[in-house]
């Protein structure tokens, strides 16, 4: 066979592979394109035209005169800046706490002890339980009239607390009086409780793949436990912790169910996603909801860009 016909045969194979590949991917691409990508593009259009729930059937896909009315309405809303602020507080503390507790759990459950497998399994409960069930149990436990937490507080001589319904609570400590955003803190604690198992799984996997000899060398050198953790283990966990931070930050920022189910966005816990659904269903203003959605996506894109720039420079350095 001449070299030319071998080449032709190869390119024929490559062509067939190309066709087969495209054929296999196509159904999935069409589904995702029609139900995710196209809607996202349409969302831009929706945010630029007056669109109410009532005249939803007349909303145009592309033929309309763009207006920034929705963006004005959304940003001039009295709630706008408080909602953004709440979203950031919720996201940052929720992320840090869930990762911190996950790290603590991974360190605790890393070394062998009797019943370790079972305890590891149990710690995944908060993460796998359906969010609606988890939110209900928390609401029950924290209920001011019959919740068990409040029963315990009352039994200890304290005052009953409406954890999920109190916007700010006066606290007296060391002769100082200050107020804390109680409902928001409770929602953040829920977030930390629900997602620490996720961080735990990742960190545990990373811990188990660390080389043993570095730690052993540190022991020989007489480093104590805390020194070994701080100077040997923690630096090696850097990559997994930063990936976790990115993922958890994005997902907490986008989270809707948890806050909506716990408080409905009341008592100073309204985050941006709850506000979007509020515009959509509560005020029947599709255009405003779409505009706030664009703002959410925009903030997320900026944060991701900053993160990747910073992260990749770290990597390169």
């Amino acid at each position: 066979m001449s070299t030319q016909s071998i080449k032709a045969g190869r390119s024929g194979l490559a062509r067939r592979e190309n066709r087969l590949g495209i054929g296999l991917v196509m159904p999935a691409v069409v589904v995702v394109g029609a139900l995710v990508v196209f809607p996202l593009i349409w969302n831009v259009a929706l945010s630029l035209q007056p669109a109410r729930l009532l005249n939803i059937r007349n909303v145009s896909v592309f033929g309309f005169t763009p207006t920034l009315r929705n963006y004005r309405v959304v940003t001039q809303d009295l709630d706008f800046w408080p909602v953004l602020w709440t979203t950031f507080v919720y996201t940052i503390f929720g992320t840090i706490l869930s990762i911190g507790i996950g790290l603590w759990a991974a360190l605790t459950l890393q070394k062998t002890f009797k019943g370790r497998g079972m305890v590891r399994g149990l710690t995944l409960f908060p993460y796998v339980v359906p969010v609606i069930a988890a939110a209900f149990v928390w609401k029950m436990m924290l209920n001011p009239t019959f919740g068990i937490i409040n029963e315990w507080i009352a039994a200890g001589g304290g005052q009953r607390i409406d954890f999920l319904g109190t916007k700010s609570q006066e606290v007296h400590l060391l002769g100082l009086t200050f107020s804390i955003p109680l409902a928001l803190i409770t929602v953040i604690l829920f977030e930390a409780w629900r997602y620490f198992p996720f961080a735990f799984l990742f960190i545990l996997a990373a811990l188990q793949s660390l080389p043993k000899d570095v730690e052993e060398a540190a022991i020989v050198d007489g480093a104590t436990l805390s020194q070994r953790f701080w100077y040997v283990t923690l630096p090696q966990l850097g990559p997994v912790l930063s990936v976790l931070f990115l993922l958890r930050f994005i997902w907490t920022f986008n989270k809707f169910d948890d806050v909506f189910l716990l408080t409905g966005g009341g008592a100073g816990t309204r985050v941006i996603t709850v506000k979007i659904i509020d515009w959509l269903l509560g005020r029947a203003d599709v255009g405003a909801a779409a505009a706030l959605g664009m703002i959410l996506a925009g903030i997320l894109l900026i944060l991701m860009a900053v993160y990747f720039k910073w992260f990749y420079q770290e990597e390169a350095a």
Partner: protein
Amino acid sequence: MTRARFEERLFGTLKVLSIGFFVVVSLFPLVYMVGLSFKPIQELLRDPTNIVPSWEQIRSLETYRAVLRPQSEGGQGFLLFIRNSTIVATSTVLLTLGFGILAAYAVARLNFFGKRSVSLGIILIYLFPAVVVSIPLFVMFSRIGLRSSLLGLIVVYLASTLPVTLYMLRGYFQSIPKELEEAGMVDGLSRAGVIWKITLPLAAPAVAATALYVFMIAWNEFLYALLFVLENRQLWTLSLGLQQLDTQEVPKTMLMAGSVIITIPVIVLFFAAERFLTEGLTAGGVKG
């Protein structure tokens, strides 16, 4: 005592306390939920600290019966919600796996035009907020009449679980040695034969893990259900039904019974496949 000895003892004690803490924090809410789910609401109000139900209450299953009974017989009609959730979740799993396996195989194994964009697209969509997608979908479905139908819900779940399915399966397909497939080809199998007889059996654990994970997403999902089937009670899924019944009229212990009902399948599935799942979750970096 040296610092090293002191720390050994300190952290040794802390470790025992920590294990206790994690067990209580993870388990107690579930114990509380199950305990209260058997009680009549009057008894909870009379003695809120007693969470252990009596043997009679457990045997009579009164709260569970009340939750499951159809609305026409004075119950909450949860059997219907269970049916809806089961239909939606299983259909989503089957469809997603069908589309996902083919696409993941192509991305993992074949060279084709646009392969890189598909891979990148998966990640981007995976990180994108569902709330933003839900607004235009809401409008779209209202216009083409897919709102207020289980089919519409299934289609949305299919689209939103496909990226993660692709992501999880692709990683696994790549880890299967190419030589095994090439050997199959040499023995005269077609490409379809190779996927069916060699790749899929080898990837069975990953496929199972993905199926379970997709099932859990669809079973637990709340936002899309709220947007798409709220208007018709006959179409409510378990998540939506539970949330909608959180009113003054419905006794709270019944809601606990409902919560147990929605939780049981998830916990059972999870522990049936814990090993696959935890490996799959950490390999795929799964959303939650």
